[in-house]
């Protein structure tokens, strides 16, 4: 698989027990490995989606899977999202564990009824006797030239639905661990793979591991301000933190799971720093940033020394021209500017 490092390398300083540097793979490769390993581990895991067979899937992560597992476990579907999402729910209730490749996050909306009214609620109907161990994978967010119907990051809609879990990993380590955990989870998980981090390289252990859902990670420690970043905004937040490091100590927290949100970790960080900036790719109004700000207002209000700031895409669809697109979605400079202004404007305690 071609490797492209798009701007950023992630070093967390992880080493194996023997002291050797951990191998580095891309986010894309990490997704592939997670699917492969879980399909080997559990014969109930099946893969469904358009072009997931020999073509290898929209993002190339299913290459080779049909050769290893056969057409009974790698099911290529027609363009029939309502149909195959519904079918996956029905199959899940009968004991299968489907991983669905839904393609662009924009497209998952076609199957919204099946996800929200059936997948999310079936455990409730079955009184817990059967559930829907389904993972819906989507390729989300901005990349240049994607345009309005290929660039959406609609996690907030799913985060509002009881019964669903929503995950958005930002690193190769996180995506492999979280995808494995999601596949092993007995609930429907909407799994966002942001385009902006797809080619990122990072250390990933050889051995089997999971990253539990519902646990945020402090990606960088700091004292003066907490930047809570989702998905493709995480590397931007880390780059911004680097830039500001001379005079401002920035803590970067990655929720990793959007629903259930690890409120405790977010609150702990904001209680420490007293300032919060939330950044996500989705447009600000109605985005996940609102929920995060509200829970911080609930639990960390007394510690706040300044207003909570949100940075999201502008209130427009995402334009197709690369220049306009980059102007609409948040960038590293937005984060730098917002943090600087926040530090300067801090209200007296």
């Amino acid at each position: 698989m071609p490797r492209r490092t798009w701007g950023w390398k992630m070093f967390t300083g992880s080493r194996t027990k023997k002291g050797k540097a951990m191998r580095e793979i891309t986010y894309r490769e990490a997704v592939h490995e997670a699917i492969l390993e879980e399909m080997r581990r559990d014969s109930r895991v099946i893969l469904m989606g358009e072009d997931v067979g020999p073509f290898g899937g929209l993002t190339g992560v299913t290459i080779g899977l049909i050769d290893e597992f056969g057409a009974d476990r790698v099911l290529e579907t027609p363009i029939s999202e309502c149909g195959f999402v519904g079918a996956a729910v029905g199959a899940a209730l009968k004991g299968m564990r489907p991983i669905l490749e839904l393609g662009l996050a924009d497209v998952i909306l076609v199957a919204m009824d099946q996800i929200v009214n059936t997948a999310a609620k079936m455990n409730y109907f079955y009184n817990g006797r059967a559930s829907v161990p389904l993972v819906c994978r989507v390729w989300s967010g901005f990349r240049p030239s994607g345009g309005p119907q290929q660039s959406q990051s609609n996690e907030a809609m799913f985060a509002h639905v009881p019964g669903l879990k929503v995950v958005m990993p930002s690193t190769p380590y996180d995506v492999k661990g979280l995808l494995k955990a999601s596949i092993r989870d007995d609930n429907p998980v909407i799994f966002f793979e942001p385009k902006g981090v797809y080619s990122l390289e990072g250390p990933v252990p050889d051995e089997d591991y999971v990253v539990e859902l519902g646990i945020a990670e402090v990606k960088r420690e700091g004292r003066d301000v907490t930047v809570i970043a989702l998905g493709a905004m995480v590397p931007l937040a880390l780059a911004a933190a680097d830039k500001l490091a001379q005079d401002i100590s920035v803590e970067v927290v990655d929720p990793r799971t959007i629903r259930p949100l690890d409120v405790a970790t977010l609150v702990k960080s904001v209680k420490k720093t007293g300032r919060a900036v939330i950044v996500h790719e989705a447009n600000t109004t109605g985005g996940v940033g609102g929920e995060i700000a509200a829970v911080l207002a609930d639990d960390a209000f007394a510690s706040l020394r300044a207003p909570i700031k949100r940075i999201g895409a502008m209130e427009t669809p995402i334009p197709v021209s690369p220049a306009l697109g980059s102007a609409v979605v948040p960038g590293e400079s937005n984060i730098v500017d917002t943090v600087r202004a926040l530090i300067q404007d801090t209200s007296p305690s």
Partner: protein
Amino acid sequence: MSLSPEDLVEMYRKLLLIRCFEEVAFRLAQEGKFANYHGGLGQEAIPVGVCHGLASSDMTMITHRGLGVLIARGVTVKAVMAGLYAKAPSPTLGRTPIYHMAEPSLGILAGTSMVGSGIPLATGAALATKLTRRNDVTISFFGDGAVNRGDFHEGLNLAAVWNLPIVFFCENNFYAKSMPLAKSTAGGSILARAYGYGIPGRLVDGNDVVAVLKATQEAVLRARGGEGPTLIECETYRWTPHSTAGDREFARTAEELAEWKARCPVKRLQKRLLEKGHATREQLKKLDQGIKAEVQEAVAFAETAPYAAADVGLENVYR
């Protein structure tokens, strides 16, 4: 498979049970005892005929009008009535409408309220059967209103392309809520759509319980034998409005209703039983009385049962 007199009497008993249940439930709903009821009065031959042709491991996906299927498959009228009253003994604990209930031991899949959205779910159940090499068959029930939804098209197409063990069963009562079939469905024929998917289609008198049974058996045999899906269109008629929540009738006339009442599925089987000497009037009368008592008992049970405790509403959101 030939039908014994015992089979016919048993089918009659079920017809009568569902008939009585539907009459009582409709009346109770009109009296405001529970919210919105989608009655299946007049359509009893379908749940009875279909379910008589199934093994207990075969699966059914119903619609909001499918309580007859629940009863035909062995859910007690007490449980279904408690379900209508949304009381604690309801299989759904009063959390969701009774037509959402699931009972794996009876092959009952949980349904959805969205018209047509259950079709892909049923396709999925059949997919699981095929992938795990079991030999059960799935019956996907839906009404004429569903056949213009995208989910109908996608569900049938998928099942046909993957050659799944499923029977798509359309209860065509000629009206969605107020929309007549003639105005909503291009091509005029639901059955004809089967040909578009390369699967066989059958048109059946939905008020002839034996005809329904025979068509079901044929389709189930095909499915179990690995020959894939069938679309069965059963013509029938509901004697009550779409639902009790403020329903007005416009398109349907008294004459049309009378015509269909004359084709009452219960009366038709009764006639056959008496003519062939499979049962006497006395026996049928006794059966009727017993059933009325059973349903009344179910009402009393449901009325006096408690509601589930409030905390129950918070449970089972996640596994």
